[in-house]
Every structure is written in C-alpha cells, then in structure tokens.
C-alpha cells in the first residue's frame, strides 16, 4: 500500500540503531461490554469501520510505523481473530518479509493486566515496545514520540517507564465517549504526567495538592482524549507482574503515580496536535470516526485505499461520496455527502442518503432515507423506510415502512417490521438479554453461550409481525439495560451540554450557601434503626426509659448529632400513624393515633427537646415532613396544638418559626395552610391576653 511504503521510507531515514526490532503489543479486546449485543457474535476488533475491520487499521498503523513484530493478543472470540489473521495478508506465508504477526492469548486472559503479565511471563518485551488497542484508530507516526521517549529514558536513567499518547480533542466532541473522558494534570516544562482521572459523573474534580509541589506551572487539561496508545519500556510488564491487582491501564497509571516517591517511576505524555487518534470506545465514537475516515481526516487511511485493495472499481464523487463500481443507484436517488456505498449494493429509486456507510451486497428499496446510518454487509432495507444514526449489522432486514430513530443497534440477523417505528436507544439482538447477563460474571464480554438459554417467542410490538429479535433496552427503567443504553452510544453532544449546564447551576447554589453536604448515610441508617425501635416499642410496650436508651445507643453507633436525633424522632413519630392506619386514613383517625403515640412517648420527647434550638429543630422537621406526608395537610394546626399542649413546644418558638421567611415553595405552601393559620392566630391572641393581664 502506498501509505505503508511512504512511512517505511521515513523510518529508514532515521537512526537505524533506534529501530532495531521494534515490537508492538496489540490488544484485540476491550474487556468491556459496551458493544454488546453486537460483540456476542463478533469481537470488537473485527467489526467493520467503513467496510474494514478495525483491527486492520491498527495493524496498518503499526506496520507503517516500522514495527517488525506484532503480538496480537486476543481474548474473547480468539478463534475468530486467529482465523481472520490466517486468511489475511498478515499471515506469515502471504506476508513476504513484512511485519510478523503472532497471535497470542485466549479466553483465559480477562484484562489488560493479564495480557501484560503474559507478555512478562513469556519475556516478549526486551526493549521498548508499543502498546495499542485494536479499536484505536490513528494515523500518527511513531518515530518522533519514540525518539523522545528513548531520549528521555537515556537522560533520566530509565525513570520514565511509559509515554502515553494523548490527542487533543475539545470537551463534548462526538469522538469523545464518556468512558474516555479523562482529566489529566501535566507539568508544562517536561510533559510529565502528574494526575490521571476519569471524570465520570463528578460535578467537581479534585486534584491532590502534592501534585503541584515543586512545579511552577502545572496544566490541567480536559481537552485530551486517551486513544490507548502507549510507548512502554520493558519495566511495564514487570510492574504488572509485581502488582497482580492491576487490571486496566488506568490502574497501572494511578499505581505508578501513587508510588512515584517510593519506586521513582514516572510517566510522560506525548500530545498529538496535527495527527488523528481516537478510540472507538462506544458507538457514538464509532460512528463519528467512520465519518472522519470518509472525510479523509485519517489519511492515509481513506476509503479508496481499502476498496481498491479488494480490486473493486471506485467512483469518487464530490462531497466525499464513494461508490464502488459494482453498486447501483436507482433513478432519483440522491447521495448528499460523506457516504460510502459498497460493492454489489443496489439502491432503489427516490432514496436520500447522507453521512452513511453502506456495506457490500446490501439491498436498499425505494424512497428510503438514510441519515448517519451505518449499514454493514448484506443488509436489506425495505421501501419507504428511514434509518437515522443507527448501526445495522450484517444480515439485518428492515421490512418496508420501518423507521429506526437515532442511537439504535440492530445486531446480526435481526428482522424488523413491517410498518414499525423503533424508538431511540433501542438495541435488538437474536440473543436473549439473559445470555449476556449470565456471562457478566466473567469480565470479558464477547464469549457467547448460544443455545444454552431456551428461546423465547419474539414480541410482536417490539419487532413487528415478521420480526425476529429481542429488545435489549428501550428505556432506562431497568437498571442494567439502562446502563447499556447510555454507554452504548455515550452521551450525545446536546445531552452532555445539558448535563454541564444543570451541573453549573447546581454547584452555583452550592457555592452560594457553602458546600452543601448530602445527608450522610449514617443519618439514614440511624433513622431506620430508630424506626425499628419505635415500632417495637409500640408492639411490645417498651418503657420510655428503655426506648431512650435504645435511641441513645443508636445515636452513638451512627455518630449523629443531637439535632439529627430530634429531627428524626419528630419525623418518625409524625409518620408512624400513617404506617399503622394507612396513608389515606381520615384525619380524625390520624390525629387520634398520633395523640396516643405522643402521650405515650412524652418523656422521650422531653428528654430530647429542651433548649430553644431544639424547639426550632423539631419545628423544622415538622415542616419537612409536612410536604411528604399528605395526612398532615389540614391537620398541621391540630398537630402543633398537641405539641403545644403537651408543653413540648412553647409559643415563642412556634411564633418565631412561623415568622421566619419561608425557605422553599413547600414551606410557602405550608404557611398558607388554614389550620396552621388558625392555630397561629389563636396563639397570638392568647399571648396578647396574657400580656394584657
């Protein structure tokens, strides 16, 4: 290939000593389930990206980078990958003196850590080597970074164990998927990595102070994407062996950073500005990278290189429309832009296609709209169908008049329709969702157990009259399915933006009133414990002294403040009658029940409500409970009256509490409660009378 020849030449120009038998370890498994259900049938490395398996991109890149030997580690579906390599041009007999590819591993390897421990056990790494992931798509060359890496190691006597390649990519970019969302701290002068953190759902990011020590300037960067390309020294596999708990690269990076003072190892980063590097970590990134390949951002990895390789003729139209000569386009069909149509595909008349990939031997009917659709090989789309931004795997059949809304996945062989509208974020597979779940105990996603589960009938409302397939996730009401839905595509840009904005306003309110601490779990546990005590006290007539003792011991056990005790106690006693009488019991019954409880436990209350602040705490708890407890609506005046009559609350506290400005909409509503107003009125009058006397 042209690209290979070119880069190979450049390698030859560099210092020959440096490139003695450069080796790469290519990991053809991502050790997660984010491409399920597709990966039940095929490993991620073999999924086509613009018609070519992702693995091919990685192999091409390392070959062009002057690597002499590649160890391809495959874990799940290792037989498929072995077969693929054996039949490909990388096979030893067809290679003709190029890069040697050894396929290693098997399903016993369950993490990246296992892979590197295996590398160490077989002592494959004798010098610096490249570590890549098969789903990393890049057109970078390794000479420059490798040279810097080696110089750094020579200068600092092997202190730097690894150079991570990170590419610049603004937050919210579609190529970034949530899993790849990292924030790193890098020292400006030396590019040394000081902190590496996955962002996840944190609204605030914390950076330990010690990382800033000794440096004048540290950059905190959130515009970097980790394509999982590393230049490793031979120490890296050894470190994985020494620390058998390292599972992922992140574990390793964090471990090295934490132990930096003890072991003296450092990690550096190489920032990519001009070249492309990304990782198809989720379907969102997968589809964005596909479009980038079509738009030629990844030159020399461009569609015509791959298509010509298969010997197919190619028509390259304007606006990046690639059409194999064997593909036919019906009259009146428009291919707008950024689209590849594979060989042997027929497109009917009156279709509109834009930003899509259509594989080989597909059949597209008439009047079909494809917008951002990734169609693999042998897909059939019936007349008058629409597919928006979804992935349709090999052999999928859409019967006429189907609509597939964005972010859907139709796995191998699924049949849909006719006349069906598939909601957003739906994944369909011929496998039952239970198969994957049964498999979840083992980390590696990709192995299948087809046939172990008893097949179930297809649901017509899900896949249509003639449809075949099971719904994996429709919405996020099921926890596990929801997780798959959100991670399969990652967050869309708009969603991410919304999230950011809501976060902003949230944290602003925090800062306005000081950092709001979420109620600690202890308080909740304490509340549960006290509730148990109270219920038992009712059932078994426990004496008040013993009840106090129990509450006190719970208080110490969960280390809650006296204030929490008062509030919890008040809340629980207010809630208890509804538990016994039911939520919609008449107010009279509720009041009677409440009065009885209050009278029984009067000494308990007296024990906790003493100071004026306790009165206020108690009232605050009443206020909070009021909003969640409909039984209190209308009876609040009477309830407070009972508190007042039993001399738990004095009028001063109540009036003061009432005169405080309402803090929320709930309390505003509370302040309008007629019963309460009546009671307050009565209190005020009583006070005036007494002062008149």
């Amino acid at each position, binding site marked *: 290939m042209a690209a290979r020849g070119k880069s190979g030449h450049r390698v030859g120009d560099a210092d020959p000593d440096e490139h003695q038998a450069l080796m790469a370890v290519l990991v053809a498994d991502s050790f997660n389930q984010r491409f399920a259900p597709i990966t039940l049938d095929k490993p991620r490395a073999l999924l086509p990206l613009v018609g070519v398996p992702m693995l091919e991109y990685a192999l091409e890149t390392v070959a062009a980078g002057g690597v002499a030997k590649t160890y391809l580690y495959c874990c799940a579906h290792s037989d498929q990958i072995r077969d693929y390599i054996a039949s490909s041009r990388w096979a030893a007999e067809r290679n003709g003196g190029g890069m040697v590819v050894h396929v290693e591993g098997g399903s016993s390897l369950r993490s990246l850590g296992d892979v590197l421990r295996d590398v160490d056990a077989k002592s494959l790494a004798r010098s610096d080597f490249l570590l890549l992931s098969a789903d990393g798509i890049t057109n970078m060359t390794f000479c420059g970074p490798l040279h810097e890496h080696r110089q750094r190691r020579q200068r600092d006597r092997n202190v730097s164990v690894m150079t991570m390649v990170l590419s610049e990519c603004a937050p919210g970019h579609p190529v970034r998927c949530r899993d790849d969302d990292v924030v790193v701290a890098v020292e400006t002068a030396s590019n040394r990595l000081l902190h590496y953190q996955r962002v996840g759902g944190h609204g605030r*990011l*914390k950076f*330990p102070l010690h990382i*800033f020590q000794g440096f004048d300037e540290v950059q905190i960067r959130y515009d970097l994407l980790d394509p999982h390309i590393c230049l490793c020294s031979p120490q890296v596999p050894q470190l994985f062996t020494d620390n058998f708990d390292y599972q992922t690269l992140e574990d390793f990076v964090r471990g090295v950073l934490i132990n930096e003072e003890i072991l003296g190892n450092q990690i550096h980063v190489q920032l990519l500005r001009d070249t492309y590097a990304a990782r198809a970590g989720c379907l969102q990134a997968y589809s964005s990278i596909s479009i980038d390949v079509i738009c030629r951002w990844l030159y020399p990895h461009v569609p015509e290189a791959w298509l010509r390789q298969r010997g197919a003729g190619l028509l390259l139209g304007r606006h990046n429309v690639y059409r194999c000569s064997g593909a036919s386009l019906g009259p009146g069909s428009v291919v707008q832009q950024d689209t590849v149509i594979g060989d042997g595909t027929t497109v009917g008349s009156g279709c509109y296609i834009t930003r899509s990939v259509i594989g080989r031997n597909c059949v597209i009917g008439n009047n079909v709209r494809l917008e951002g659709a990734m169609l693999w090989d042998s897909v059939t789309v019936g007349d008058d169908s629409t597919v928006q931004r979804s992935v349709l795997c090999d052999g999928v059949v859409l019967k006429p008049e189907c609509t597939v809304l964005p972010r859907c996945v139709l796995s191998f062989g699924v049949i849909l329709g006719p006349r069906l509208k598939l909601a957003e974020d739906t994944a369909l597979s011929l496998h039952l969702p239970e198969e994957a779940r049964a498999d979840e105990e083992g980390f590696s996603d990709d192995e299948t157990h087809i046939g172990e589960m008893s097949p179930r009938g297809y649901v017509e409302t899900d896949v249509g009259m003639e449809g075949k397939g099971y719904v994996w996730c429709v919405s996020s009401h099921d926890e596990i399915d929801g997780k798959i839905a959100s991670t399969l595509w990652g967050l869309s840009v708009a969603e991410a933006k919304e999230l950011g904005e809501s976060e902003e306003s949230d944290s602003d309110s925090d800062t306005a009133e000081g950092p709001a601490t979420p109620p600690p779990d202890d308080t909740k546990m304490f509340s549960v414990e006290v509730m148990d005590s109270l219920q038992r006290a009712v059932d078994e007539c426990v004496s008040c002294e013993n009840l106090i003792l129990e509450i006190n011991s719970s208080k110490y056990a969960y280390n809650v403040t006296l204030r929490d005790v008062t509030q919890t106690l008040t809340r629980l006693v207010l809630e208890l009658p509804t538990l016994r009488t039911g939520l919609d019991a008449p107010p009279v019954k509720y009041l009677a029940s409440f009065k009885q409880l209050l009278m029984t436990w009067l000494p308990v209350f007296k024990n906790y409500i003493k100071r004026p602040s306790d009165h206020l705490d108690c009232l605050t708890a009443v206020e909070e409970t009021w909003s969640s407890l409909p039984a209190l609506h209308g009876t609040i005046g009477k309830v407070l009256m009972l508190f007042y009559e039993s001399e738990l609350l004095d009028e001063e506290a109540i009036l003061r509490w009432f005169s405080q400005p309402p803090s929320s909409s709930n309390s505003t509503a509370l302040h309008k409660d007629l019963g309460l107003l009546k009671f307050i009125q009565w209190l005020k009058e009583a006070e005036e009378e007494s002062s008149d006397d």
Partner: protein
Amino acid sequence: MEFQAVLLAGGRGSRLTELTASVPKPLLPVGNRPMIWYPLNLLERAGFEEVIIITTKEVRNQLNTFPALSTKIHLDYQIIPEDSDSSTADSLRLVRKRIKGTRKRNSCWEGGDSTHCIDAPVPIPPKHPKAPQRPQKHHLCSFLFRASGPTKGGPPVWHRCRLTEVRKQDSLATIAGLQQRCPAPEPGVHQVVLGRRTAVHKVTNVLVVSCDLVTDACLQPLVDLFRLRNAALVALVRQVDEPTEPIPGQKGKRPHEQRDFVGLDESGTRLLSLASEADLDDDLSLKKSLLCRFSRIHIKTNLMDAHLYCLKKWVLDLLAEEKSISSVKGELVPFLVKKQFSAPLGQKDLHAFIPADGLAGLAQERSAWDETEAAGRHGGAIRCYVHQLRGGLCLRANTLASYVEANKQVARVLPSLMVAEECLIHPSASISEKSQVGADSMVGRETQVEERTSVKRSVVGDYCVVRLRSKITSSIVMHRVTIGEGCNIQGSVLCEGAVLGAGVELKDCLVGSHIEVEPRVKRTNEIIERMIMI
C-alpha cells in the same frame, strides 16, 4: 482618567513587628525614602493627579511634615479610626462614599483624529497675545492654530490663523471641515485645530494599591488589559524569586510561605481560579463546567499577588452590601473569581450591582452571535484577569525578608524612578575620599562617612555617622545611626537612632531603634532589642 486611585496605608505591619514598633509601616525607609513613596511614584508615573490615602492619623501627620516625599500628586487623606482593627475591605468601604461620580480634568484635544481626551499630553501652544483671554460660553474651541511643522528638530512654531467659533454641538467632522476651509498652508506646514477644554470623566473604576508595593512597573499594560476586556478586576502578579540570603535575626530554615494556586487560561491572563494554600485541605477542586469551558487550565504556584487591583466601581458597592468580606486579597478577589462562572441567581445576586451597559445590550440584541457561545473565552458579565509582570522589580515589603530584599534591590531601579538631579549618594553627605562606597549603595543626606570605611550593597540613611575603618556589607542602616570605629556589619538591619560602639561585629542581626550596643560586641543571627553589656 476614569480611575480613582486608592492607596491602602492603614496596615499595622503585623509581619514586620520588629521594625514597626517605632515607625509606622508606610514610613519605613526603603532606599532612604518612606515606603509609601514607591506606590505614589507608581501612580504619578501613570499620570494620576490625585490619590486617596487611607491611613491612620499618626501617619498623616508625619507624612505632612515629611521632607523627602517629593511627589507632585495631590494627596487626599481618609483617616481610619485608631481603635478599630480595620481590615482592607473596611478601608475600601470607608472610601466608597468619597469617590465622586465625576472628575474634571483640563486637557487639550486635537481635531481630526482623536475624539477623546489624551493621557499623553499634546503640546499646548503658547498663548497668543491676540487671543481672547477666555473663550466665550459654549465655545468648545476657541483657536485655530497653524503650526509650521517641526523645523530642524526644534519645536513647532505656532501661528494663530483665524479665530473660529465652534459650538459645542459641532461634531469633529465639522471641525475638520473648518480646517479645510482655512487658507491652504504652504507645503510642509502642519495644520492643527487645538482647543482647551475641561474634560469631565465619569469615575467608573478604582485602582487599589497597597503601601508596601515597591516596584518600577509600568501600569499602562495593566490598564490596557482592564479596558480591552472590560474586566471587573485586573490584578498585578509577578513570579516569585526564591530568596537565598538569610533573614536577619532568624535562625534555621526560613518559614514556609503560603502559596497561592492561581489558575489561568491559555493566554495567561484570564483568572479562572484562585485559592490560597492555607484554605485548601488536600485537594484543589475545580468545577467540571469550568473545565468544559476552559479545557486547559494552567495552575501556577509561583505567582505573587502584588496587591494592586483595578476594580470596577460597582465592586465597592458590592463590598458595602457584603458585610462578611473582610479582606480584599483573601476574600473579595476569590469571591469575584468564583462568581465569574455562575449564572445570575435572583435579585440578591451580585449581577444586580453591575450597571447595565446600554450599548453592549443593544449590540447583543442586534447581533446574531449567541451569548452562551461567546461566553466561552471572554464572556460572562464578570471577568477577572491578571497582568503578569516579567522582569523589573516588584516586591511587597511586608515581611522582614522582603523588606531587606527590597532595600537591596532598590538601588538598581531608583535612578529610573527619581527626578534626574537626584542620585544615590545625597550631595550633602560628606564622604571621605579614602573610603569606598560601592555603586550599588546609597548614602543619605548629611551623613558622614569617615576614612578607610567600606560600604557595599547597603543603604545608609540620613544624618548617620560611620566612623573610621568600618565595614558595612549588605545591610540597612536607617536614619541617625552612629557606627563606631572599626565595626563590621554584615547582612544586618540597624533601626533608627541605633548607636554602635567601636569594634562591634554583627552578622545577620537586627538592632532595634535607639539601642546602644557596647563596644566590641560580637553577635550573629540575633535580634538586639535591649542594651547589651559585655
């Protein structure tokens, strides 16, 4: 200028107690000038004509009688109550009412290209004998002058051509038209319309500076940044140089100075986060939304805040409302920095303090540009920036170490700050020809330096006497100090009126004011605050 300068000189010098026991901090000598001279000089160089000094009664009285305070700037005092322990924010609250809405300033303007008052003055033509003494009412422009262009390096010669009456409502275009209608000048003759007017400026900004700032910086870039970005706050910062020399009277390691964690954007000007090391526990925490907007934050730990701030005037209004803020550096600035990225919250939010900018609002309304998009880099209603000073001298003489450092370095920059005829060695000082006074040293007025003495890298104050065969190296000798015969003073500070007997040897010591040290005393690394007998 639309700026009101405020000089904070009410501090007690709590980190300089050894020295401020006898002299109030603003009057401590740095390079034989009271410390307060330096910020005043800074303001004067920037073109300020008046300044409000917030200080104690004591300092004001002394300043009024101070001989060496050669400054043309008009000093306006705001006295802080003696008894109260007033904070920097309190000082600004005091001064808020005194900042007038407008300010008058006489200036010249030139027709044709400049619409605004000029900070750099245009040469005012000499008064023409035939010109009317005062322009009539409503007359903006009273003279039309023609200057024969600069001939042979000399100043332009001004001729009065015609008296033209320009009414106030006339635009500059009209003036330019008038100019054109004048008789065509000979080639090479430059024609200018010049007038005098009283410019009325609305005071919208406040420049706050601390009295302990010793710097030769130029304020122009800082003010440029402030105006360019329409910022709420611009602070002056400078990289800290690690001092290496020992501090007089302090043993062991130098105390760990509290650093600031300053977060800047890529350009190094926008202030994104600010936290003092003392306020942080183990982590520096940043909002994710901030990182989404500024995905590259440079955290700097080696910047010193020079306590010089350009503020919008509404910040003082905010300060009057927010009673809880007590320190400008510690609370007000971090508060503003944090509020840059928060959405307005209801009525009580500080966005209510920001006066509406009608023009900007109109531009926003008519523009297709989305405010939220623009908010990325220079957006938001509140914007805080820093101006990083590179090179030059910039020190805060608020600790003993930095005070000593300032005295040492000031001889280097003083010549550029002073009036030309002044020099490092006062003309009235009598220095024996057989003595050696280094070029990096200063000697005050009427000080006697006797034979065979050597003064190196030191500052010797006014009315001092340095007797025979003494050596003074890297030291600060304040006013009215007597140093006996054959003394050897190294890296020390001798406060006002100290008397050293013959043969005293001091290394890294601090001698309190009016202390007499007996002859032949040898001390290293001590604070001498009582009489020493052998």
